[in-house]
């Protein structure tokens, strides 16, 4: 997960606002990869490379740029502009570090005891074949069989696969970071939970071919064996 910074014009004001934010939460950018979206800057802008250097001097770790104009000099130092194919993330609020008094935990919403949450589950009792796509946004999906290479299962809740997962499984579609993915044999091409994804190349070898689950530990995808 990379953070996207999108500077706005006038740059001087934007930098001031950034400085103010950094003073309030000094460690926020520490160790966080950042992509700078330069799309808002006009094509004739000068000194874009210097501007990026300035950001780095503030301790921001730039891993790439987006929307950079080819005419700007020196910008390629930060890697070629990422094609705009990435999934746009949600804007995030940078937390102020010295917790202001008003953040004293808002009283938890009282849960009406009689309104038992409706548990929605879709059960598929056949294998999911290559090219098939199962989408169920309201809750969990349970597959009695395998999910083939080239097939995908998407659920608003968790995904349970009583067979091998060789295709894609996507849980927590509607922004549910607590959702998980379970399977009897992990050979997935891709797993994703709440927008955080991992492809086969990045999966821990220890889980491949084993009964495993994928879950979110903060913003990190974890894939661990079940036994």
């Amino acid at each position, binding site marked *: 997960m990379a953070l996207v910074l999108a500077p706005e014009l006038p740059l001087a004001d934007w930098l001031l606002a950034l400085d103010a934010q950094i003073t309030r939460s000094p460690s926020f950018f520490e160790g966080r990869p950042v992509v700078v979206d330069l799309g808002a800057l006009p094509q004739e802008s000068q000194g874009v490379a210097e501007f990026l250097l300035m950001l780095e001097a503030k301790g921001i770790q730039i891993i790439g740029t987006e929307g950079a104009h080819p005419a700007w000099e020196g910008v390629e130092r930060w890697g070629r502009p990422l094609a705009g194919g990435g999934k746009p993330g949600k804007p995030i609020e940078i937390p102020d570090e010295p917790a202001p008094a008003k953040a004293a935990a808002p009283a938890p919403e009282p849960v009406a005891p009689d309104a038992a949450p409706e548990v929605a589950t879709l059960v598929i009792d*056949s*294998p*999911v*074949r*290559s*090219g*098939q796509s199962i989408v169920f946004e309201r809750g969990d999906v349970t597959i009695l*069989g*395998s999910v*083939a*290479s*080239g*097939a995908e299962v998407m659920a608003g809740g968790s995904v349970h696969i009583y067979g*091998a997962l*060789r295709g894609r499984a996507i849980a927590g579609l509607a922004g549910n970071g607590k959702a998980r993915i379970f399977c009897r044999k992990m050979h997935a091409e891709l797993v994703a939970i709440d927008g955080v994804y991992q492809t086969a190349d990045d999966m821990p070898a220890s889980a491949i071919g084993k009964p495993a689950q994928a879950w979110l530990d903060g913003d990190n995808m974890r894939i661990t064996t079940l036994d």
Partner: protein
Amino acid sequence: MAKVLVVTSGKGGVGKTTSTAALGAALAQSGQNVVVVDFDVGLRNLDLVMGAERRVVFDLINVVQGDAKLNQALIRDKRLETLSLLPASQTRDKDALTEAGVERVIGELREKFDWVICDSPAGIERGALLAMRHADLAVVVTNPEVSSVRDSDRIIGMLDSKTLKAEKGERMEKHLLLTRFDTARAARGEMLKTEDILEILSIPLLGIIPESEEVLKASNLGMPVTLNAPTSAPSRAYFDAARRLNGEDLEVVVPLERKGFMSRLFGRRVA
């Protein structure tokens, strides 16, 4: 009760046409009336493999569009009188096949024959969909190789959703036919293992056809291999597959080229 069987695979070049001809000739030799139907409109091949290319007058498209009667288009095999061919048109394309026309032709064939075997074109488009549309059961032809297995999986998904049987909520009977199985390479572990393929596709195994020169030789002569070289290894595998289609319960073995003592010694059990 006539049975409509579709021979399909998704991927091209895996042996659908060869298997259609071989299974058709094997079933016909057991005395049942069999017709093989070429659905590969525009790229017809079945007539060549059946050795009937010089006898084609009318074809499937003519019958579908009502320009010819079914009897005018059917070609009876010269060697086996229980075997007939309904050729495809080479000059048209798959758009010439209409759903209503195909339904009528399959209905008429059902009345005349015990087995209607439809040779599907490769791909997942109109031609392949219409070939499987009216089937009662399917033979999925697969090579022991990853791309073929994935394409077969895709086709199995379509058999379970796009056929009339599936739409009526009935279960489509599906069988796996592993073709071009190279016993030497299998022994060296250079091909996908049979049990892995079965695990991925999870449909029952109808047979394993060994890679053999006999198949190519027979095709070039315009003969189904089960007619040209009935005792060869691939033919024995096709005959066993045909018996399984007729409901017999036989153990699946990989037949080897050598006969007698040696083949009994090395005839390995696979599933």
